[in-house]
Each structure stands twice: as C-alpha cells, then as structure tokens.
C-alpha cells in the first residue's frame, strides 16, 4: 500500500480549531461574522477532507506525524478508507448543522451562543481527529477532547436539569474511558509495545484466552460513546442539550466516534482472525443484539420525542457493532454503511424535533397530533427519515440492513436475523404512530398563533432547509450507494484480504 506524507490530515483537524478561535475572538458583537466563520470553517473542513478522497480511492494512505511526545506515544494521523468515510460523513453533516444551528439558536434566542459555536467547532475538530488517528494513543487523546469539549454543550442551558444531565454524561464518558479504555491501552502497550492500528491487529496469536478476553472487554466497556448497554444511559441524559447538539453530536459525531472506535479496536487492534479464533466477536454480537432489542423496547415507552430518538440511536448504534462483531465481509460492509445511513436518517429526525420545538415549543410525542398539517415539509421529512430507520426501500436504511442480513447469513448466526426482524418491527412501532398522529389525528391543542388552524407555519428557513436536504439525501443514497460502497470495499479488502 502506497503511503503519502501530507499535511492535509492535520489541516482537516486543525481548521475547525482555528475556526473556533476566530469564533471566540469575534464573539457576540458581530454575530453575522461569527456565524460566517462557523460556516466557512465547516466548508473548508469538508473540502479538505474531500480533497483526500481521490488518493484513498486509488488505494493510497495519507500519513502525517504531528509530534512524537515520547518514542511510543506519538500523535500521528493516518487517513485510510475507514477514516475518510467517517470524516466525510461528519464534516459534511457539520455544514448542514451549522446552518441549522444558526436558525435554531437565533430562533430560540439562546444565550451564550459564542460558547456554543466555539465548542461545537472544537468537538468537530476532535471528531475528525478520531477519524484520522493512526494509533490508539492519538485516538484516545481526541476521544477525550470530544468528551470534554461537548460537556459545555450538554450543560448549555445551565439549569439544574442540564447540569445534572451533563454530569451524568461526563461521569459515563470520562469515567469509563479513564477506568477501562486507558487501562486497556496500557495493557495492550505493555504486551505488544505497539499501539498502531494495523489491518491484522497488534496482538500475537499466542496470547492467552483469559488475557485477551479481559483486554477486549476493557476496551468495549471503555468506549462508552458507542452506548452499548448497560453503559448507554448517558445518551438519553445528554438530550438536555440544544437540539442541533443532539442532532450532530449525539446522532453523528460523538456516538459515531464511539462505534468508529469499536470498529478500530475490533478490526485494527485485535484483528478479525484473533477474535474469530477466540469467538469473542460472537460475544460482542450477543451483547449488542440485546442492546438493539432492549433499547427499542424502551424507546416505545418514551413520550419525550428527543428521548425516543435517543433510545432509537442506542439501538441503531448496536446494529453497527453487531455488524462488525460478526466479522464477515458483508456484515462489515453493512456495519460501516450503517454509519452513514443512520447518520443522515437520525440527523433528519433530530432536526425535525428541533424544528417542532422552535415553532411550537412542544417536546412530547403525545402533543404532536395533527402537527403534519401545520408543518407539512418538516413532517414529510420526518416520515422519510423514519422509514429509512425502519429499513424500507427505497430509502438508505434498507441498504445497510440488507448487507447486515447478508452478513448474518454469511456468519451463520441466525439469531442475528431474528434480532434484526424484531427490531425492524419495533422501529416501526415507535416511529409510525408519530407519523400517523401527525397527519391523521386532529390537533388537540390550539397553538397560540393565528386563528386559522390550517395555517402552515413552518420553521425558519435556516432550520427547514437543512432537514429537507438530509431527508432527500436518504432517498438519494438508496439509488446511488456505490460511492460509499466503493470506499467500504477498500476497507474490507484491507482487513480481510480477498473479496
């Protein structure tokens, strides 16, 4: 594999840190300029990431060593297929979220907006940092930066409830990463002397079963951002954050950084061979399967729309984990594909939740009767995204689910098929009533503005446009998945050889 040395990965990470500084300097005095920085950096970030794509598609790898802190602890970037896949998703959605954030924050006249945009940019920096990490240490550094930089976002409202949620958020994410992940990294290093992600793992084959099991589960428990049960409850708690935060960070950047790390650990630290030998992948698949079902059941009972979405996220994240845990080419394809399909779907759903809140200040599912008539575009987008989540063709969600099913057959793990089937039904159960109520039921509460109930009152354009865009994307992705599959092919080829 050819390796290019280039500054681009560093630029891709640093550009939004720079943007954050500009945002902080500009401050509240020149709001438009500040927002312009936000959008400008997000565009710049995406274009830098995208500019690396051709090389990656040609089978090359881009590397850049930032700093050798000690001979073994090196901050180094390496852009490979998996990294660029995640970075593209996150940085593209950041552009859309930037617009949405502006509309949302201004629409609600939120306080401390500078702080909000500042930390948002930092969090994105760190997310791309995780995506481009060449070794476990670098990944860990950025993982922690994500946690710390999103803390102010979760606590944004500064109410007791927000602080409580943020506290829980931090306890789970920081606590487990120090307690388990760091320990696992140290043990890995003390055994192998190597923390680099490599496509066949870093461990020797002769490592004892007990040790490998302990390390494996230390990692899994340490990457709480993937929200695998029983360490998932930070995610619902984080829903106190403003909706754009929930949308981009808790449906895309943060949680996907979690599953991304799981994929990295499973495929690039342990390697599929080793895990298969010890059947550890299967154990992980079981845990994740349980999460899928349990989270869906809990989601059914949530009346708060954002909480329902949060539990749905918990469940959907485990799809990704199951896929990678099955360790077959198709299941890995499905799993990685699900990163992007779920990202688009879920961000749309959160955007709609935010739009509803901006217009009506409603947060409960039970209050949404008849809202479809009032906000037809919003709710249509919601419907599309929900269908994609369920996995109905012709929507993006179908593609990843298809590959996952295929992978389960390949791995001859039929229970996964059952789990996927049950989960699909459950998905339908918790999404469809909302759609039904929105369009079919009569409005229970008269909304204070306007005398005419039928009046269409959509969210501001900055809020509405992004969510329509992402909803359309879920459709387009069904018809044109080849671009993504192309990248995934490179990834799978890297870790499995053949196929």
């Amino acid at each position, binding site marked *: 594999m050819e390796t290019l040395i280039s500054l681009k990965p560093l630029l891709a990470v640093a550009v939004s840190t720079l943007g954050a500084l500009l945002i902080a300097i500009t401050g509240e005095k020149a709001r438009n300029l500040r927002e312009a920085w936000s959008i400008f950096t997000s565009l710049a970030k995406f274009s830098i990431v995208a500019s690396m794509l051709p090389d990656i598609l040609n089978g090359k790898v881009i590397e850049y060593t930032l700093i*050798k*802190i000690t001979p073994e602890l090196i901050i180094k970037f390496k852009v490979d297929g998996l990294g660029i896949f995640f970075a593209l998703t996150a940085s593209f959605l950041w552009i859309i979220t930037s617009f949405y954030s502006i509309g949302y924050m201004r629409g609600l006249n939120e306080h401390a907006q500078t702080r909000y945009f500042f930390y948002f940019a930092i969090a994105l920096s760190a997310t791309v940092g995780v995506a481009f990490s060449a070794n476990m240490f670098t990944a860990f550094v950025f993982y922690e930066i994500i946690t710390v930089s999103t*803390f102010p976002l979760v606590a944004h409202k*500064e109410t007791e409830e927000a602080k409580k949620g943020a506290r829980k958020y931090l306890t789970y994410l920081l606590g487990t990463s120090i307690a388990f992940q760091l*320990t696992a990294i140290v043990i890995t290093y*003390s055994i192998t002397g190597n923390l680099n992600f490599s496509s066949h793992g870093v461990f020797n084959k002769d490592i004892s079963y007990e040790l490998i099991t302990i390390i494996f589960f230390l990692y899994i428990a340490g990457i709480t951002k993937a929200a695998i049960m029983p360490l998932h409850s930070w995610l619902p708690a984080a829903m106190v954050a403003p909706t754009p935060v929930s949308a981009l960070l808790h449906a895309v950047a943060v949680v996907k950084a979690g599953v991304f790390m799981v994929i990295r650990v499973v495929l690039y630290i342990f390697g599929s061979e080793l895990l298969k030998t010890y059947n550890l992948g299967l154990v992980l698949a079981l845990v994740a399967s349980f999460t899928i079902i349990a989270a869906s059941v809990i989601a059914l009972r949530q009346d708060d729309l954002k909480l329902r979405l949060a539990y749905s996220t918990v469940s959907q994240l485990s799809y990704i984990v199951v896929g990678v845990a099955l360790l077959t080419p198709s299941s890995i394809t499905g799993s990685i594909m699900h990163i992007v399909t779920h990202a688009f779907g879920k961000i749309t759903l959160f955007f709609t939740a935010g739009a509803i809140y901006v217009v009506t200040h409603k947060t409960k599912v039970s209050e949404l009767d008849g809202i479809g008539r009032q906000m037809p575009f919003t709710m249509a987008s919601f419907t599309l995204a929900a269908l994609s989540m369920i996995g109905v063709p012709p929507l993006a969600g179908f593609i990843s689910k298809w590959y996952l099913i295929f992978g389960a057959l390949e791995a001859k793990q039929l229970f996964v098929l059952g789990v996927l089937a049950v989960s699909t039904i459950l998905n339908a159960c918790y999404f469809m009533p909302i759609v039904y109520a929105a369009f079919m039921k009569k409005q229970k509460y008269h909304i204070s503005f306007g005398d005419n109930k039928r009046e269409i009152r959509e969210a501001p354009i900055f809020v509405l446009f992004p969510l329509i865009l992402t909803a359309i994307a879920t459709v387009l992705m069904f018809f044109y998945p080849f671009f993504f599959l192309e990248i995934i092919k490179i990834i799978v080829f890297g870790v499995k050889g053949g196929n």
Partner: protein
Amino acid sequence: MNLWEHSSILIVVTPLIASIVNIFISLLKRSLCYPFFVGILGLCSLLSIDILSVVTTSGTIRYKLGGWTPPWGIEYTVDHLNAFLIIIISIISFIIAIYSKESIKKELTKARLPYFYSTYLLFVTGLLGITITGDIFNLYVFLEIASLAGYALIAIGERRSVLASFNYIIMGTVGACFYLLGVGYIYIITGSLNITDLSRLLPSLYESKVTLAALAFVVVGIAIKIALFPLHRWLPDSYTFAPSAVSAFASATMSKVGIYVLIRIFFTLFEPRFLTDITPLSNILIWWATVAIFFGSIIAIGQTDFKRTLSYILIAEVGYMVLGISLCNKEGFIGAVLHILNDAIMIACLFMIAGGIFYRVGSRNLEDFKGLGKSMPITMAAFTVAALSMIGIPPTGGFFSKWYLILGATKAEQWISVAALVFSSLVNAFIFFKLLEKIYFSKKEVIPKHNFRELPLSMIIPITIMALTILIIGFYSGRIISSLIRFTVPEGF
C-alpha cells in the same frame, strides 16, 4: 576566579546569606526587600540553569567543600537527578516569589514582610541543600533547615495555622530524628557518610540486620516528611491555613524533595536488588503507596475547603510517586520522576489559584467558586488546564507521568496499584469537573460583597506561566525523558 565553576555551592550559599542580608536591608529601607528577594531567587534560577547545562554536557559535578577530599570532607554531587530537582525548586521558588508580592501583602502586616522573605529564602536554602549534597548527615542538616523555615512560614498564616504548625513541628521532628537514627546505624556499620562511598561499602553488608534497621528508620523518617499515609496528619491543616504562597511553594517542593531523598537512598545508596530480592521492601512500599493513593483520593472527595481538598490530593500524589519508585522497573521510575516535575507544577498552580480566589473572594469554600468563570476568566482558564492535568487528560503533562506509572504497575503486574491509579484519576475528575461546573455553569446566588475582578498582574502572570508550562511539558515529555530522566534511571532496571 570563575564564579560559574562554583555554582553548585553558590546556589545554596546565595539564598542563605541573602536571608540575613535581607534583614539588614529592611532596616535601611523596607521597600527594597522585595526586589532583593526576587532578584536573589532569579539568580538562583540562573545558577540552576547553569548547573543543568553543565551536567547535561559534561556529566556529574563533584564539588569538594573546603578542599577536603571525600569521604572525609563533605562533597556536593550533582548528577542529572539533582540538576532536575534543583531546577524545579529554584524556578518554582522564583515564580512563587513573584506571585507572593500581592497575596502575602493581604495576609501579613507590612512590618513582618521582610521576615517572611528571609524565612522563605532559608526554606529555599534548605531544599536546594538537600538536593545538592552528597553527604547523608549534611542532608539531615538541610532537611531541618528546610523544615524549620517551613514551620515558621506556616505559622504566619491565618489564626489556626499556629496550631497546625505546632503539630507539624512535633511530627516533623520525629521524622527528622528517625532519619538521623538511620544515619547513625549506617555510620555504625560502614564508618562513612558520603553517598558515593557508601554505595561502594554497603553491598557487602546487605545481609546485616543493622542495614535493614537503618533503612527502616530512614524510610519512616522521610515518609513523615513527605506525608505518606498514615503519617500525613500534619499536612492538611498546615497547608490549608498557611499563607497561599507558602502552601503553593511547600506543597510543590517539600514532598518532591522527600521523594528525591528516597530515590537516592533506594537506588544510589542501595541497589534495586536490595529492595526486591533481599528484602520485601519493594512490595511493602507498593502496598503502602497504593493504600495512600486510595486514602488520599477518598478523603479528598468529602472536603469542602479547596485548599484542604488539594492537600488530600497531594497525599494521593505522594502515593503515586512512592509507588513509581518502589515498582523497581524502568517505566515506573520514569513515571515517578516525571511526576515530580508535573505534580510540582500542577499543585503549585492550583494552590496559587486557591490563593488568588482567596485574595478576591475571601473564601476557600468550594461553594464560593460559583460564577467565577465570568469574573476571573484568565485565572479560571489556568485552573481548567491544571485540573485537566490533575485528572490526566492528554495532552497535558499529568497524563504522561500517569501513563508511565500505570505502565510500570502493569509491567510489575500490580493490578491493585493500577486500580488505585485509575481510581484516583476518576476521583480527581469528579472533584474538578464538579468545580468546573460551579465555575462556569452556576450563577452566583448572593450578590458578592467584594468586587470580583481578575487578579492583579503580578499574580496572573505567574499563574498563567504555570498553566502554560503544564501544557508545554505535556508535549515535551519525551524530550525531557530522553535528555534528562533517562540518565537518572538506576542500573539494573
């Protein structure tokens, strides 16, 4: 005469003489004391840099005091470890000296200021003497100079500090006497007091019970001085009630110097195999330190007074360093030595911030931190950096020493110690994020009586320098290890 040749003696003698001269200056003109005081410490910093550069270029300095050849005369030996400690002590003393100007004015009457400066200089003398001397009895004398100055400095704090200082005297004297007893036993069997000489004489005497008794006395004596749990009782009160500048300086240096003495005794005076193979001392100390880490962390959670919280965290941190050196492997040792540097800066920075908050708010209570993020933004940014480093979030300095410590404990398969280190990080995370939340996300409930503003420049600058150093050290950890700490690792690891 080339003065630089004598820098290793000058660095001790300068503050010693200056402390007396300072009194005379105060008789002439009191306002000259402070510039003189800071100037002397600046000079010490320059000398320490000179010593460091000599050591790194031409190796160990051996300076014969008064021309007497060792082992009869006292010899000053400065190798990489000494130079490392010397530079930490002199530069931190210099920075805190700058900081002390405003903070001490608020806590002391004007007439007593010159005495404060003199005592501070004596304290520096003692600490530098401990690190520079190559003679174990001379070390005792310097240890007592430092301690005596420390007692006095603590006693000038707020009302309750006097009793704390008295308890410290009692405990500290017991510690020093134990150390002296140990020295006596070593002298009985070897007839020598010179460290280099002893390291040659002792190996043939490892089986002797007297050697063991000597080591036991010395270790317990030093353990009191560094407040290793359960011998820590004097520390929280002393550092809580002492003047802020004193808490910052003493907490940053006193325990580190004690750790240095332990390293000297374990690995220069004795050999690592004495700890691991001949006696179970290594294991005992690992357990001892592990308990200290757990204890310090657990007690720290329950405190409401910020300086007291820091004191208990310091007790846990002392456990870190003792653990690192008693693991008897390369990683642990590197971790411990690196942590000497990191912890000195972090804890000094935090105590300085505590002093700064006390300066403005007049309280050390954690509840009174609410909303400070708005009124003291720079100080609080420094606080955030220091807190992250305490927790061990990369890329702050604290992460790297912790990394090596955990790595060392893993290599030695001391899982309980690994758990202790991790646990203490979690506790620090809990404590500091709770505070950060108060600082940034809480509004003040009562309208403040005092004017909440940013601190005066002479306090802000030292604090900011410290915080920046924490960040810079993080990135240069590898450089520090490869150019300095690597040479301090004892043979046989």
